[in-house]
């Protein structure tokens, strides 16, 4: 019984990490930068939905749509204010900029939503009663997260394969210079990438907030888990990030179930260290391909 629960818990938690990791990967693939403010974009998306749905009483679906739009706009704004001015700067400048942005967003969130208390409960979308799947009980909200991860993955894949914008993003990811030479407006593609990534963070937040609760400081912890997932899957590899998310989630659940609850939280760090030492390119690494 414990094993079944551990696997189920790992899958549902892993779906959560995978969803956040996908946003990180989209950014990295196109811009070559890791967005260390991605966790905070997630957090702001969640609080936007909370404000609309809980505080203002807007129905759930319009709240979701508006929060995602708000997240996308925030991504665009971040691009204009932070990323675009640094487009030619060394990579370390972008690291510092995204970390700085994360602090700014956290501070703003504390200012705007800090008075709500230490954490903010977000009502579940689905019936809060657990349902039985075979011998194990699962919350419908957990199934919603798994389903939304699969759906988002499918949509993002289709976006990159079928749409002109997606293809230009892929072209820029392959070679910004070549893309520029064939007439692609690279800066605009970067802006769209930051925006898409932020919108995806908002989607993740809306689905996950009922499971994680919202606090202005929720972003960093989730970023770490998602980062472990992307490292494990291979930086820039989307299916790898999803697999990595599930592996991190399941590893955490196994650690809690069979070793000690206290080990659960350090599993992400252990995974990051092991991957960096044993297989720096991750399970589905694409580093070599980018260097060609």
């Amino acid at each position, binding site marked *: 019984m414990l094993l079944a*629960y551990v696997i189920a818990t790992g899958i549902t*938690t892993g779906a959560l990490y995978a969803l956040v990791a996908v946003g990180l990967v989209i950014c990295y693939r196109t811009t070559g930068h890791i967005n260390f403010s991605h966790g905070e974009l997630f957090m702001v998306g969640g609080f936007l939905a909370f404000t609309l749905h809980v505080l203002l009483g807007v129905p759930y679906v319009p709240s979701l749509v508006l929060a995602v739009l708000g997240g996308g706009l925030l991504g665009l704004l971040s691009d204009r204010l932070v990323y675009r001015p640094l487009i030619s700067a060394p990579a370390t400048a972008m690291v510092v900029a995204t970390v700085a942005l994360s602090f700014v967003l956290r501070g703003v969130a504390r200012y705007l939503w800090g008075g709500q208390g*230490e*954490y903010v409960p977000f009502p579940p979308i689905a019936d809060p009663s657990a349902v039985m799947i075979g011998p194990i*009980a699962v919350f419908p909200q957990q199934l919603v997260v798994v389903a939304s991860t699969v759906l988002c993955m499918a949509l993002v894949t289709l976006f990159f394969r079928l749409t002109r914008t997606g293809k230009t993003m892929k072209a820029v990811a392959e070679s910004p210079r070549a893309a520029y030479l064939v007439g692609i407006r690279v800066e605009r593609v970067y802006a769209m990438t930051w925006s898409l990534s932020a919108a995806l963070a908002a989607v993740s937040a809306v689905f996950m907030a009922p499971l994680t*609760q919202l*606090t202005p400081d929720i972003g960093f912890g989730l970023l770490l888990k998602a980062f472990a997932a992307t490292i494990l899957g291979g930086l820039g590899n989307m299916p790898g990030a999803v697999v990595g998310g599930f592996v991190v989630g399941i590893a955490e659940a196994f650690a809690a179930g069979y070793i000690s*609850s206290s080990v659960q939280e350090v599993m992400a760090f252990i995974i990051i260290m092991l991957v960096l030492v044993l297989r720096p390119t991750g399970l589905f690494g694409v580093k070599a391909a980018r260097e060609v």
Partner: protein
Amino acid sequence: MEQLKRILRASVVLAAALGIAASAQAEEGVTDTTIKIGTMGALTGPLAGIIVPQFNGIEIVFEEANAAGGIHGRKIVFVREDDECLPSKGVGAVKKLLYEARPFMIVGGGCSNAAIAQKPEIVAAKVPWVVTAATADALSEPVDPYVYTTMSAAWTEVYGMLQLALDEKKSRIAVVWQPDAWGKARIEPLKEALKKKGVTAIAIEEVAVEPTDLTPTALKLKALNPDAVLMLLYPKAAVPFLRDSMKVGLQPLAIGGSPLVEIDQMAKGAGSVEAVKNVRVIAAAGFGVDDPQVAKWKEKIEKRFGDRFNLYHMFGIAGGQFVVEALKRAGRDLTRERILAVMSTMQMSSDAYAGPLKCTPADHQCHKTLGIFALKDGRVSGVGSTTPTR
């Protein structure tokens, strides 16, 4: 001769003026019309959400006293200093407070870690300090002449939690705790309490401070069949624990401390009232946020600061009332020595606590009567009180 007289007259006038000035500035932080009181805690950072409400609670009491004409004609000036609840920043912040703002006394100190680092500075400066929220036993034990606390010390809550479980005839007791400074300040006193009462915990499980899912922990505990779980947790960990415990069918008596007093909010977080049906909370505050006893303060806080009234405001209100009462009793000739003498035998009631605030020269932990709370009809309601002893 005439010149000598003029010099003498001028000297007398100057001496009188200096004397008046000296008497008006008799004590640092006190003028003829004001009393400066300082506080330090997290105004920014992750813990600002629980510290700022405490300060707002203190300030609302001071504002009420000021509106009533002040204390013996002096208005309280409340100065806040940000330490982010970090020991590394705390010492600098309290030095700035002590030597730049120069308050008459300090009221506050929200986090144990920072407060422990700040204590030597405050004691060295011989400034009276009323701790309003930090709970570490080391702040008030052994007794220091300059330090008083209106918050229940860490040992008080854990002894109360265990006593409640034993009073309910529970014998298979498990403990779930979070390994941060707050949790560490409680787990040792709890182990000591278990030992003193001759109880062996069937499990002591450490969980993450901000977990996403605690199903494996709940399953492990379920296998041990506890009839009570003592939760040394903040809501971020307690909510997933209660939610996942309900999911796997583990719902023994679950007893938490002050941070869990907003049981209704935890029910929302867990998505179901069912998850908290067996939760009891031992809290420093004496009343639920919707209790008529604190309705006046709830209205004032929400109107003045726009906060959602909560437990942390009550800690501040009690601390503020304690200080205002002490200042009143100390009289117009206010000195630090005098207020310390007053506080050493202080006994009073606060609007926010279930029992009296009572200090003695040998015991500066002035608050020991804790409220017991449960969720009734969707509201956090007081279901009793307890005064734990060691």
